[in-house]
C-alpha cells in the first residue's frame, strides 16, 4: 500500500505477522465464536503473547512502546481478515490509554502489564439505558463512604462486557454538577460485591463480540480505584480521548471499504448474466468507479488526519467530520456491493452480507453521526460569527 505516513520496516514486519494471526487464528474461528457470542480468553492470551495487545503501552509497563501506526495496522489487518472478534482495539486503543494517560503510577503498575499480556481484559462503561451520546446526563452515582466509593446505576451496550475483568465505569461523584461531576473508576469486577452482568445482548451484527448490560447495586470499591486519584476529571478525560477513538473508527471503515471493494470486483468478474460478465455492464463499472473514487478521496483525508493526529494537531471538529464521512461512505459502498452481488449478497455465507450487518453499527457508536454533524455544524457557525 502506497502511503505518505511514516511506515518503517518494523511496521511492515508487524503487519505481516498480524495478517497471519488474524487469517489463521481468528478468521476460521468466527463461526464458533458467533455461536458462543464471544471469543474465548485463550485467544486474548495468544494475542498478548504475539505482542498484539496494547502495542503502544510503554516498555516500563510491559508494552512495546509503539506509535499509533501499530494500532492502525492491527485494526486494518483484523478487518481485512474478516475477524470481528476478539475486539482487541477496544482493549488496547480505548481502555488502556485511559490508564496510560490518566492513571496513577500504582494504577498503571497494577493493570497495564496484565492488559499487555491478555491476563486482564478491559472494557469501558459509559452509555446508560437512558442516555447514549449525552454523557453529562448519566445517572450512575459514586458516593464517597470512608475510604471507599459506593456505586449505583446501570450501563448498557458495553462491548467486551462479558469477557472483561477490568471495567472503567463512568459515574457521577457530584450528581448536581453535570460534566464536572463525572469521575472514572477502575473496577475489577471479580473482586467486588454488588456487580452483575445482564443477559448477552442480541445484536443486528457483530455476533462474535459480546455486548452487555451491567448493574451496580451498592457496589463498594476502594478509593484507590478512582482513575487518576482525583474526582470530577471524568468528562474532560473522556472528551480528550474521543478524537483518537473517532480516528480509529474511520480507520476501520476505510479497511471495510477496501475489503468490500476487493471482494465485489472479484465477484463481478466471475459471475455472468445475460451472456456477459456482470463486470461488463455499464452500471457495474459506474458503481465501482464511484466507490473506488470515494475510497481514494477518503484515504487521502484519513491519512492527512492520521498525520495531523500524530503531530498533535487534529482538532475535534475535523475528527467528527472524518468519523461521520467514513462511516457513511462505508455503509453506502457496502450496500452497493451487496446489490452487485444480487441474491448472494443477501446470503450470510457470503462475507459481503455479513459486512453489511456488522457495519451498520459504525454510524451509531463513537458518538452517533448526528452528534458528529452537530459538532461540525456548531464549529462552522461559530467560525462565521468570529470572522
Amino acid at each position, binding site marked *: 500500500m502506497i502511503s505518505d505516513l511514516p511506515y518503517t520496516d518494523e511496521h511492515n514486519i508487524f503487519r505481516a505477522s498480524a495478517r497471519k494471526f488474524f487469517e489463521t487464528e481468528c478468521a476460521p474461528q468466527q463461526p464458533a465464536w458467533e455461536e458462543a457470542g464471544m471469543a474465548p480468553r485463550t485467544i486474548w492470551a495468544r494475542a498478548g503473547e504475539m505482542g498484539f495487545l496494547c502495542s503502544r503501552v510503554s516498555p516500563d509497563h510491559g508494552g512495546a512502546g509503539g506509535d499509533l501506526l501499530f494500532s492502525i495496522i492491527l485494526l486494518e489487518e483484523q478487518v481485512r481478515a474478516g475477524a470481528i472478534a476478539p475486539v482487541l482495539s477496544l482493549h488496547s486503543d480505548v481502555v488502556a490509554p485511559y490508564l496510560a494517560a490518566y492513571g496513577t503510577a500504582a494504577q498503571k503498575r497494577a493493570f497495564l502489564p496484565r492488559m499487555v499480556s491478555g491476563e486482564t481484559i478491559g472494557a469501558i462503561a459509559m452509555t446508560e439505558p437512558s442516555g447514549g451520546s449525552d454523557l453529562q446526563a448519566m445517572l450512575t452515582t459514586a458516593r464517597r463512604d470512608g475510604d471507599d466509593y459506593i456505586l449505583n446505576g446501570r450501563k448498557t451496550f458495553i462491548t467486551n462486557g462479558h469477557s472483561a475483568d477490568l471495567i472503567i465505569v463512568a459515574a457521577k461523584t457530584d450528581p448536581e454538577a453535570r460534566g464536572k461531576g463525572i469521575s472514572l473508576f477502575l473496577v475489577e469486577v471479580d473482586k467486588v460485591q454488588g456487580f452483575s452482568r445482564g443477559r448477552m445482548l442480541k445484536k443486528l451484527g457483530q455476533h462474535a463480540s459480546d455486548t452487555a448490560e451491567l448493574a451496580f447495586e451498592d457496589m463498594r470499591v476502594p478509593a484507590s480505584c478512582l482513575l487518576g486519584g482525583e474526582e470530577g476529571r471524568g468528562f474532560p478525560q473522556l472528551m480528550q480521548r474521543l478524537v483518537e477513538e473517532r480516528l480509529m473508527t474511520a480507520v476501520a471503515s476505510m479497511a471495510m471499504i477496501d475489503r468490500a471493494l476487493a471482494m465485489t*470486483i472479484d465477484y463481478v468478474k466471475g459471475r455472468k448474466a445475460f451472456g456477459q460478465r456482470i*463486470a461488463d455492464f*455499464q452500471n*457495474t*463499472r*459506474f458503481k*465501482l*468507479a*464511484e466507490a*473506488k*473514487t*470515494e475510497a*481514494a*478521496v*477518503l484515504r*487521502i*483525508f484519513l491519512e*492527512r488526519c492520521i498525520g495531523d493526529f500524530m503531530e498533535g494537531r487534529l482538532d475535534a471538529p*475535523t475528527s467528527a*467530520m472524518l468519523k*461521520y*464521512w467514513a462511516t457513511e461512505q462505508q455503509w453506502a459502498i457496502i450496500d452497493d456491493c451487496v446489490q452487485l452481488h444480487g441474491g448472494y449478497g443477501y446470503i450470510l455465507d457470503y462475507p459481503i452480507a455479513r459486512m453489511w450487518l456488522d457495519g451498520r453499527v459504525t454510524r451509531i457508536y463513537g458518538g452517533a453521526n*448526528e452528534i*458528529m*454533524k*452537530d*459538532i*461540525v*455544524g*456548531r464549529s*462552522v*457557525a461559530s*467560525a*462565521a*460569527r468570529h*470572522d
Partner: protein
Amino acid sequence: MIRSRHYTPAHEDFRQTVRRFMERECVPHRDEWQKAGRTPRELWLRAGKAGLLCTKVDSRFGGGGGDLYHALIIIEEQTRICFNELTFYLHSDIIAPYIELYGTEEQQARYLPRLAAGEMVAAIAMTEPGAGSDLQAIRTTARPDGNGYRLSGQKVFISNGQVANLICVAAKTDPDAGARGISLFLLETDGADGFVRGKNLNKIGCKAQDSSELFFDDVRLPPEALLGGAEGQGFAQLMLRLPEERLIMAMSAVANMEEAVEETARYVGEREAFGQPLSDFQNSRFKLAECKTKARLGRAYLEHSIDSFIDGDFDATQGAMIKWWTTQRQYEVADECLQLHGGYGYMSEYDISRRFADSRLGRIAGGTNEIMKDIIGRTL
C-alpha cells in the same frame, strides 16, 4: 491555508497581486460584463500587464515560470469574488500549454509572448454539434491545399469563442483514420476569410463567459498553422493534456464549495426565523456540517493531487476521479447552501444563486462525469 510542500511565500505574494487585481479590475464591472455576456479585450491586456496570464509558461516565452499553485491562486481569488466566468485558466493553463509542449519553435515564439501579454486571447475548438465527449467522431476537416490546408466544419460550445483571436481547432486531416486522423491547427482569426462566429450562446450560468458556435467555410490555413508540424498527432496531444485540465476544473469546484459554505454560515448566523437565528436550527447546522465536510475532503484531495501532479505522478484515472467527485460535490453543496438561503437564494443578487447556476456546468464540461466513471471503471 494551502498545505503543500510546493506552496511558498512567493505564491502568497502572488495571491496579493491577484486579489488586488480582482478587487480593482473585476469587482466594479462584474455585473455589467454578465449583462454583456462577455469580458472586454481590455481586461485581458490588463491581466497580461499584471502578470496574471500564462503564469506557468516558461519565462523565456514571457510567461511567469510558475506551477499549478499559481493557477489555483487565480481560481481561488476569482471564486472569492464569485466570478467563475473569468477564463484566464482556459487561456493560460489549458491552451497555452499546447503551444509550449507541442508547438514548433516558430509557433512558441510567435504566440506565447502575445498570449502572456494578453494581446492575443485563445480558445480551443473541439466539440461539434454531433460530437461532444466522443471526440473521434468530429467531422471538421482540414484538406490539403497547395502547401497548406482548407478548414471546413462547425464547432459548438466554444468558450472565449467571441473574444478569441487565436483558436486551436481540432480537425480531421485523414477522415478515414479515426483518432489518428485528427490534427490541431492554430487559427489566427483576424482577416481569416470563411471564418464566422455564431451567436453568443445563452447559458444556464456563467453569464459573463462567452460561448459560441464557430463556422469554418473553406478557411485557408498556411502549413505553419499545424500544431507541432506533424499531422495526426491531435488526438494524442489532447488526451495527454486531459488529466491536468480536469485537475484545473477541480480547483474551481473545491474553491466554490468553500466559498458557498462560508457565505452560508454567515447568512444563517445573521438571518432570523421564528425568533431565532437560522443557525440555531438543527437542520441548518447538519446541512452546513455535511457541506463543510465535503469541502474539507475536496481540499485535501485537491492539494494531494496537485502535489502528485507536480511530482509527475498523476494519470488519466486520477484526473477522472477528482473531476467527477469534486464537480458532483460542488453541485450538491451549492444546492444545499442555496436552500439555506430560502427565497433569497433564488435571487441573482445573492452570490449563492450564481454559484448554483454556475455549478451545473462542471458535471458536463471537460468530459461528462459519466465519461469519467467509464474511464475509472475500465481500470478495475
